[in-house]
């Protein structure tokens, strides 16, 4: 038998270099943060500059006055795309989260024979290169008359199922079986348990799943250009690439457009970073 003895903090063996090492860590971290923020610096400095002050030579200079003029120029070009992306990403992320909740519950607390075989098959869908399904996808959607915003939302729901299933499966697996009362033999009882016990306690998993899916759908570009044919239905990433994606566009407009298109996901990240982080870790199969 071995008793675990906690070493009191002050008795820990401390190297006499230890304060210096901590200082070195801070210096290293600050230097790296500055390096990481160089693109952000350029982005903000340029976007908020008065258009008359913008020139290649002055790219690194701080603006003399804060100006929103560039945003005013860019806004009309992105307005429709921003609206489309919101209309598409919000329902898509909510619906695919509910589907994921049902799947996750079944695959963790209601494991039918074969459940362990089915799960990896679903999971595989999240890693495929989407290029390898684009041709059939585009055929099917144009035959169904769904080369529009609805079709795009549908695509995000379907290809979101693997990750949302994974998020909810890991979440429910961490909930004790007693709470779910797996002793119920009756299937209808289980359905009720899912709706009235499991769903209400899965709020944190919903936060992770909805945030993750929203970010994915918002930031997607490939499905946007392949699925959507009409310009009025383009999501914001396609609108952004069209307005800012050529060398002819003055770079302050490109930068301001990039800022505008990134605001919603950045807001989500700032306000709910913890949940975003968990989605990220789930994506690496590390629940």
């Amino acid at each position, binding site marked *: 038998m071995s008793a675990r003895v906690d070493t009191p903090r002050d008795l*820990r*063996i401390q190297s006499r270099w230890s304060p210096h090492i901590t200082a070195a*860590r*801070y210096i290293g971290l600050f230097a*790296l*943060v500055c390096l*990481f923020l160089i*693109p952000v610096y*350029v*982005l903000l400095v340029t976007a908020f500059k008065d258009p008359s002050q913008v020139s*290649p*030579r002055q790219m*690194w200079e701080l603006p003399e006055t804060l100006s929103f003029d560039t945003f005013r120029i860019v806004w009309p070009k992105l307005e429709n795309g921003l609206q489309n992306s919101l209309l598409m990403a919000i329902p898509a992320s909510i619906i695919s989260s509910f589907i994921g909740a*049902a*799947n996750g519950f079944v695959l963790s607390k209601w494991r*039918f*024979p074969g459940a362990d075989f*089915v799960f990896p098959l679903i*999971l*595989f*869908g999240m*890693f*495929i*290169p989407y*290029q*390898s*399904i684009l041709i*059939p*996808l585009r055929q099917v959607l144009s035959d169904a008359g769904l080369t529009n915003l609805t079709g795009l939302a549908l695509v995000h729901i379907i*290809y979101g199922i*693997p990750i949302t299933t994974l998020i909810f499966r890991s979440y429910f697996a961490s909930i004790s079986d007693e709470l779910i009362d797996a002793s119920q*033999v*009756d*299937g*209808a009882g*289980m359905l009720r348990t*899912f709706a009235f016990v499991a769903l209400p306690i899965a709020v944190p998993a919903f936060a992770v799943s909805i945030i993750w899916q929203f970010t994915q759908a918002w930031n997607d*570009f*490939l499905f946007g250009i*392949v699925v959507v044919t009409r310009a009025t239905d383009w999501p914001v*990433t396609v609108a*952004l*690439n069209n307005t*800012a*994606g050529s060398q002819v566009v003055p*770079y302050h407009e490109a*930068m301001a457009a*990039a800022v505008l*298109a*990134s605001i919603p*996901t950045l807001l989500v*990240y700032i306000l709910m*970073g913890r949940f*975003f*982080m968990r989605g*990220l*870790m789930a994506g*690496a*199969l*590390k629940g």
Partner: protein
Amino acid sequence: MYRLRRWGPAILLISPSLVLIGVFVYGFLGWNVTVSLSDWRGLRPSYDYIGFENYTRLAEDGRFTNSVGNVIVFTVVFVLGALFVGFFLAYLLERRIRGDGFFRAMFLFPMAISLIAVAIIWRWLMNNSTGAQQTGLNRLFSSIGLDFLVNDWFKADQPFAVMAVAIAAGWALSGYIMALFLAGMRGVSDDLREAARVDGASEWRVFWHVVTPMLLAVLMSAVVILVHISFKTFDLIFAMDSESRLIETPAIYMWFTTFDAFNFNRGAAIATLLMVGVSAVIVPYIWYSMRAERRQ
């Protein structure tokens, strides 16, 4: 009867997803392979079987082999770079120092923005104009006397052009790798570290001999994730310079040959090869993860 009552509703609940995944993932993958073996060119679908001709043609297609070369260089630089930076960041943040949440958030935020936005920022940073038009990083370098660093970035000669793209990709994803390593490092129990310290090991030795060996599984995940992302990367390269052969990868070429030139069969063949490449790393990874889970 018992089995039906016990499992029936469960299967009913999950079956819509199984059908959707069955059709939209596996069905479409099979369909894509069929297209890759067909003579479908132009807007009208055609499924006449022509064998592996599309694949043998790709082998002789200079544009395709060029794109394969690019994606190989891109993968090596991007994966090694992101691993190195991510690991180093995690190492710096490993001890719970004051403000570590702030630092983590700063390194991770590029994950929250679209690769289109990332490409737009970096395209201007890596602009190669000269003289009065000189701007971006080149302008910064020459104004602080680092002229030798001024270069053509993603318009440089091969294979350097695609390395510049890898810098932008690394900027976007090193934070993710940091998060993975950090979770792994913090999972190493304090008792284990303490035991090594009591034995007189220095902090550096504790890290190197106790913590890093436990990170092998994380390293594997990180490599698999980065490699498969690198094969698939589309937005970043497309928005950086879509017309440039210097940085074109198979994922980009597939799009152009299919949706721009309507060579559906050739596009499908490229897509199938991409799928094979990604599966080669992903299938063992899923299998390994599932086995590890069952053992717990």
